[in-house]
């Protein structure tokens, strides 16, 4: 299969998945609750108000019609109005999503960098104390929920060592840079406001670290095992026999093919980052999509809930497409195999 055919196939499959996801979310948010307006306005709201709001939001039409109206909006980036605050959901999400994306992306960088670094260290010094520590970290990373890391980091680095701020995105007294992307670190860099940049970076570090721990340990584990597998292969022996320096073998010939498994689970790791962001944001008082989402869930604001889940689903599916294409590029064997399991 050519790479372009592979990409086209992958895109069509993902579109199908997204369409199915939209039906699933529609069923959860509209069909299951019966009367979302009544649920949001409460039992004491007068009947005529409920009926008026229902009519305004087309909730009095049959389900298939409702679904197509909703889907048409989603495709155009319009998630309707909140049942609770009557504000535009898309506007709200535009305000909150960048903070979460900034956190998740930074955590993703930390995860990939430190994960692979630990994996390399561990293979270089196999069965030494370095290796044992890395293995212990990677074990603890898998079994510890993100919010536990967040709390331990707050206590340890925030309060005990006072090394990092534990709440918010910027220190008091520093004015936020003008919103371009909504990610303060990038916005402040673009406007040359280095004071804001460093403040934002220190605020970002602890939550991103707490968020990245699970993926980091998994990356380290996989990098370690795939590198030690490849270390046994004949081509490494051949390089050694030719007298290539160990460092060159390590980084030029061993690392590259060993990265394929770590890249291919990046998609899953990003999914974990996005959902764990909900927990970490709670601990660090991070004004991202989680507070908005949890609030929407608690107030039964189903339009907002549907929007948050749909946006995260779209983000996740797009990341997976990118990851699959990278992997297919790195490893032609993947392209040859018929894609059985889809995502």
């Amino acid at each position, binding site marked *: 299969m050519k790479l372009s055919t592979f990409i086209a196939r992958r895109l069509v499959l993902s579109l199908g998945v997204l369409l199915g*996801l939209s039906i699933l979310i529609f069923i959860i*948010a509209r069909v299951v609750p019966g009367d979302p307006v009544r649920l949001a306005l409460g039992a004491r709201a007068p009947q005529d108000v409920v009926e008026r709001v229902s009519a305004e939001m087309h909730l009095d039409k049959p389900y298939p019609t409702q679904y197509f109206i909703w889907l048409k909006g989603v495709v155009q980036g319009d998630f309707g109005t909140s049942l609770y605050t009557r504000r535009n959901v898309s506007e709200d999400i535009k305000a909150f999503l960048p903070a979460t994306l900034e956190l998740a992306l930074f955590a993703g960088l930390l995860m990939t960098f430190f994960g692979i670094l630990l994996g390399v260290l561990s293979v270089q010094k196999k069965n030494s104390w370095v290796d044992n520590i890395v293995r212990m970290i990677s074990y603890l990373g898998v079994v510890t*929920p993100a*919010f536990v890391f967040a709390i331990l980091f707050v*206590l340890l680095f925030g309060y005990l060592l006072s090394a990092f701020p534990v709440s918010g995105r910027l220190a008091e007294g520093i004015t936020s840079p003008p919103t371009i992307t909504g990610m303060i670190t990038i916005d402040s860099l673009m406007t040359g406001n280095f004071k804001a940049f460093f403040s934002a970076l220190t605020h970002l570090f602890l939550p991103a670290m707490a968020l990245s721990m699970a993926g980091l340990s998994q990356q380290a584990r996989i990098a370690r095992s795939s590198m030690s597998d490849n270390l046994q292969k004949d081509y490494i022996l051949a390089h050694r026999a030719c007298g290539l320096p160990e460092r060159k073998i390590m980084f030029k010939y061993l690392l590259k093919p060993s990265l394929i498994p770590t890249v291919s689970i990046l998609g899953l790791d990003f999914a*974990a980052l996005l959902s764990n962001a909900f927990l970490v944001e*709670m601990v660090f008082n991070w004004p991202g999509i989680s507070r908005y989402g*949890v609030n929407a869930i608690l107030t039964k604001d*189903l339009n907002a809930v549907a929007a*948050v889940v749909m946006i995260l689903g779209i983000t996740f599916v797009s990341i997976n497409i990118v990851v699959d294409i990278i992997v297919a590029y790195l490893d032609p064997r993947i392209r040859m195999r018929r894609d059985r399991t889809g995502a």
Partner: protein
Amino acid sequence: MLSSSNTAETAAIKENLWQVRKDNLRRSWYKFTGNRLSIVGLIIVITVILLALFAPWVTPYPEHRGAFVDFNNAMQAPSTENLLGTDAVGRDILTRIIFGFRFSLIMGFVVIGLAAPPGIIAGLVAGYFRDTWIDTLIMRITDIFLAVPPLILAMAITAVLPPNVFYAMLAVTLMWWPWYARLVYGISSSLQNEFFVQAAQITGASRAYIIFKEILPNCISAIFTKMTLDLGIVIIIASSLSFVGLGAQPPTPDLGTMVADGAKYMPDQWWMTVCPALAIVIIVLGFNLLGDGLRDMLAVEEV
């Protein structure tokens, strides 16, 4: 004459079979104990289960499990009387952690027990009808479920339901079956061309017989290993839901809720949040180590 020698033969075969099974078991145990961490996992899991089962008898203050208030002893640091300290209303944290184990374990066992069977059946059926529309339909539906992070989907489901333990379980169950479907599908679809399946088809075995008697037994060790590993993950997800406030509601002693409540009193009353947090880590660690041990013992590669 003939029948008596037959029964003697059968008895001998049975005896022999029993001996073989015993040998296999011993060999498996030897493999399992080869890694000390597996034993640590087994010990943790057994201890936690025993503690949870006998919680009313082993905890120092069993009455503290529910809505108990003793403001005179509130926020006490760990001491000989309260080994892990007391919480904001004076309840013994150790007691509540042990009762919290109960909820975590129930959650884990119920969710996996409910989610695995439909997932397994879906995977078996899709694998048996590989490359037909049944395969496509089932596996594409699982793709949709797997397209959203599990925690988010569970949260969305709890949004339309009242927040409590039962609905939290239901929500996690609804998004957990696709993982089993995919695991079993992977194994069963690769078995379609094996001779023993073809032989059964030729001798006229029914589809149900082939699926459940020929293919399913080959998936059992992978399923069993995944179940053990998943128990830990489900406990993490359940405690995360509770941590956000969408799972167990007070005064139910739940580890996630306890961490969230205690976090309000950081850093001075650190034990209120750190102790239940570490309790979650220990229980999940136990299931994970045990699962890894099983994986090595049963030589499962797919999970």
